[in-house]
Every structure is written in C-alpha cells, then in structure tokens.
C-alpha cells in the first residue's frame, strides 16, 4: 500500500495532545490557535483526498468552504432555519454544488481541470462580492448567533459560550475527518482512487468507472470543506468573500504539500506548523507568503514526501549508516564510500 499508514505512535499522540491542549496551553489566544489548526486539518485532509489520493487537480476547495459558511449563515439569518439544521443544509448544498461542478469538469485532467475549477471558485467569489442584497458584498456579514447547546444524555449540555467549547467541537470534527479519510483510503474505494491517480487509463481498462469514483471523491472532499465552513462561521462571528477566494485554496494546498501529499499525517503536521507558527512568531503576511514559498520549494526538492516524511527519512538515514558501519554523525567519509 502507499503511504496511508498513520503510524501506531502518531495517532494516539495527536489524540492525547489534542484533548489536553486547553490545559497544556491555556489562554484564549492559544486555544483560538488550536481551533484554527483543527479547522485547517479538516480543510487540508479533505483536499488531500481530492488532489493527493485521487490526483485530481481541482482548486475550488475554498469555494466549498465558503458555501458551507455562507449557506449556513444565510439560511439562519434570512430564512430563520435553526442553526444546526442550517449547517446540515449548507453541507448538503455544497455536496450538490460539488456534484454539478464535478460532473461538468472531472472528465478533464491536469491544467484543464485546474482552470475550470478555478473559474468556479472565482465565480463564487464574484457572486458573493456583487450580490450585495443577499451577501452584503465585500463588507461581509457580521454573525450574531452562536451554535446552540448540544444536549448530551446524562451529562451537562455542550454550550458554545467559550473558546474551549468550540475548540473541542473543531477537534472532534477534525478527528472524525481524519478517521473518515483514513478509512476511505484504506478501503477498496481508496485503492481505486489511488489507482486512478497512478494511471487512469489502466484503471478504466481494469473495469472501474473512474469518472464516477472521481466525482464521489470530489463530492465527499467538498462536503467536508463545507463542514469546516458551516461550523467556523458562527465561531468567527464574521464572514467575507475574500476568506474563500483562490488564495485560500492555494494556502490550503500549500499546507498539504508541505505536510505531505497522500499521507494521513501530512495535513496534520502541515496545519500545526504552518497555521500556528506564523501566528506565534507574529510573522507579517507578506513575509509569511515568502517563507511559505521558499519552504515549499525546499520541500519539493529535498523532501518530496513532505514533513511527514522526515521521520521515515531519519530512520532510513540511520539504517543506511548502520549498514555501512558508520557513526550516525559521520559526514564526508560516508559520501566517499558511496
């Protein structure tokens, strides 16, 4: 199998650190960062299903994130739909959008697919910008509702009045997303998706209706992006069109690539490092993009498997040194032997 394995150590470590995070790093700002990381885990893992595992270079992910956010907010504010029901409806709406876009575009490949999905992404942003009577245009919408309390039988209700309450919701959703993606890529469906990425002609000749598989992967990935949007909007209390433009998709894609395409751990490591570090180090946005760009080039040249490959590379490096009977720290001597 390809690099699907999330590792026996990584998964429990993420769960333990994730659950204890509000105690380990108290304070509103740090908990907000934790929520952001969880949100990007959802976005990056779902994009990884489409681009990484299935190999479909679709760049409209932020638009579906936006359909989730705007869809739920507009349903609540304009039609008075209950908040949770509006969130569900927005996710289904994103799925329907993805189905239509997927059916129209997923017969295309490579740059053609990227251009068509980019066009949809821009169309979505332009609609949000210009349909002022509905979306309030570029000024965005201030959200004055929060997520309603979730009643838990025999336990106190889950009230969304504090940052930790939202953090645990995002952690739960991120965990569920990661588990779902892990199950998909380890299943028969995942094998077909990965076969399509490797050689779509062979996959078709092997008897798989590849177009249908690609559409399904696209719809599932896009609906997961909408989950992030529908739950994040009430938390952020504000949404605007530029939060869901092509730059956001590129940002999500960059996190996946730096973390590690076609790995379960890659989007997690990528989100942790690329979302939290620039905030913690207070790097200005312009410098941040420069740092991301340089990092991406270095990763692509030196570490094509992304950050999640570091552990594997280190193990390989140590094993090779041991085979040669060299100390791990030895430098040029090792090279002269080669």
């Amino acid at each position: 199998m390809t690099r699907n394995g999330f590792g026996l150590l990584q998964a429990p470590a993420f769960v333990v650190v994730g659950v204890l995070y509000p105690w380990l790093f108290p304070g509103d700002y740090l908990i907000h960062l934790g929520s952001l990381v969880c949100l990007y885990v959802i976005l990056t893992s779902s994009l990884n299903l489409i681009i990484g595992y299935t190999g479909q270079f679709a760049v409209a992910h932020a638009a579906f994130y936006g359909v989730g956010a705007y869809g739920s907010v507009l349903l609540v504010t304009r039609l008075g739909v209950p908040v949770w029901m509006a969130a569900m409806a927005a996710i289904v709406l994103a799925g329907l959008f993805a189905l239509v876009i997927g059916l129209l575009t997923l017969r295309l490949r490579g740059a053609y697919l990227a251009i068509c999905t980019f066009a949809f992404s821009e169309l979505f942003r332009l609609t949000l910008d210009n349909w002022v009577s509905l979306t309030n245009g570029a000024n965005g919408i201030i959200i004055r509702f929060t997520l309603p309390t979730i009643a838990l039988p025999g336990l106190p209700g889950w009230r969304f009045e504090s940052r930790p309450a939202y953090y645990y919701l995002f952690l739960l959703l991120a965990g569920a997303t990661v588990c779902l993606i892990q199950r998909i890529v380890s299943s028969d469906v995942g094998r077909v998706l990965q076969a399509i990425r490797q050689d779509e002609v062979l996959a078709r000749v092997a008897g798989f209706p590849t177009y249908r598989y690609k559409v399904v992967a696209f719809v599932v990935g896009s609906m997961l992006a909408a989950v992030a949007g529908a739950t994040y909007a009430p938390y952020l209390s504000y949404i605007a069109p530029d939060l869901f433009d092509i730059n956001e998709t590129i940002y999500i894609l960059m996190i996946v690539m730096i973390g590690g395409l076609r790995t379960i751990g890659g989007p997690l490591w990528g989100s942790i490092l690329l979302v939290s570090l620039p905030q913690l180090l207070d790097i200005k946005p312009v410098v941040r993009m420069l740092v991301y760009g340089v990092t991406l080039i270095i990763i692509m040249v030196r570490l094509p498997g992304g950050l999640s490959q570091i552990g594997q590379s280190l193990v390989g490096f140590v094993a090779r040194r041991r085979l040669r009977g060299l100390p791990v720290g030895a430098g040029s001597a090792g090279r002269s032997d080669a």
Partner: protein
Amino acid sequence: MLDVQGIRKRFGGITAVDDVSFQVAPHSITGLIGPNGSGKTVTFNLIGGLSRVEGGQIFFQGERIDRLSPDAVTQRGIGRTFQNVKIFPDFSVAENLVIMGQPREVLRCGRSIFWNARPGEIGARNRDLLELVGLSEKRDEPAGSLSYGQQKLLAFVALMALRPDPGLILLDEPMAGVNPRLVTTLLGLIRLFQARGKTFLIIEHDMRVIMELCSTVIVLDQGRKIAEGPPTEVRRDERVIEAYLGR
C-alpha cells in the same frame, strides 16, 4: 466469440483503420500483425472501447460492444495489456492483483469503508498466480521497483486476476523488449491459460512467436486487412511479403 465487422477509424486526414473485418474463435490464439502504423493498436483500442469506431460494428459473444466505455467492455469479459507495460507502480505487487478482483461499482466498493475489515487480502487465487510467475517473494514490494520483464509478467497475471473472468485477452506486443528466457516463459503462460479456456488476440512482431502460437493470423497494412489465414499460408502470401515480411 469476437466478431469485428467493417470497422473504420480516422484521425484527422489519416485513416487508421479502414473497413477491417475478422472473427476470433473461442479458445483460439489469433495473431494480428503488420508494419508499424498499420492500425493494430488502434484496432485494439476500438475493441477495448478506448476509441470510438466511426463505422462498422463489434460484437462480443453476440453483444454489440463498440459503443461501450472501456470499463464496460472489461466487465463484459475482455482484458488487455498495452504496448508500453502498464501496472500501478506505487502499489505492491500483491495489490496489483487484489485491485483486479475487487467490486467495480462505487457503492459495492464503498461498503469496505465501513464493513470490510480486510479489503487488502490477497486470496489463494492471486497467491497461486504470483507463484506461477515467480513473483511470490516480491509480493510486498512496490510494483514500480520490478524489472521490465517482471512488470510484463505482473501485467499478464493481473489480467488473469480480473473479475469477472475475462474470456478474451488482447495482448499488445507481449514479447517486445524481453529476454529470450522470458519469451519462453510468456509462451508457456499463454498456452497454459489457453488450455484453461482463455481466448487470445495477440499483436506481435516476432514471427517465430506468431508461427508457434497462433492458429490464425490477420495482417493489416495502412489500416486495411490484406490477409487472413493459418500462419504458414499467410507467410507465403505475396502481399504480406511485400508489405511486412520482406523477401
């Protein structure tokens, strides 16, 4: 078993296949030969659904298949290999066989997300196939790391692992670029699976292979069929000597 009736295919101003008709009998090995650019691989693509015919019809076991997609053709029982060996290089050797036997439909396949705990199990049949071609030891290695010859063997046995079982196998230059020992192995494999009930249609330039294996040979030149018959007769045909074999 396969009935090709007057098929035509053009690419721009070039007629790649022009009114070609032939039949393939069940359990036979039929050769399709001709010079480069004579339309052999295009004919395979038309049978396999990778290209659409612009005239004529193709029937397989009585059913018209020339308007079916490649996956539907495969599901009717036609498997094929390619001139440039095609495998899934990132999958392990075993997985290249496992994928051939799994359900095709998205929903049936999707059950394994929630219910099937061991979707990657190789199964006794695939184990036997790997044993047969001497790849058992390499079952967990990435298929892309195999040598060219081993990849050819893998592509061949992957066809035999296909579900539903393909009755007709199209082999596009199976002996190209492989060493003489492997040619012998592949010849043995083709005969073995013929004895097990498979039918073969083979594109091949090695005339010794064609003479040794095939009961019928079809010769194409510039998209047209110029001869058909037993190999010994075709070899003496003046038009075939002129267009392909040389004097």
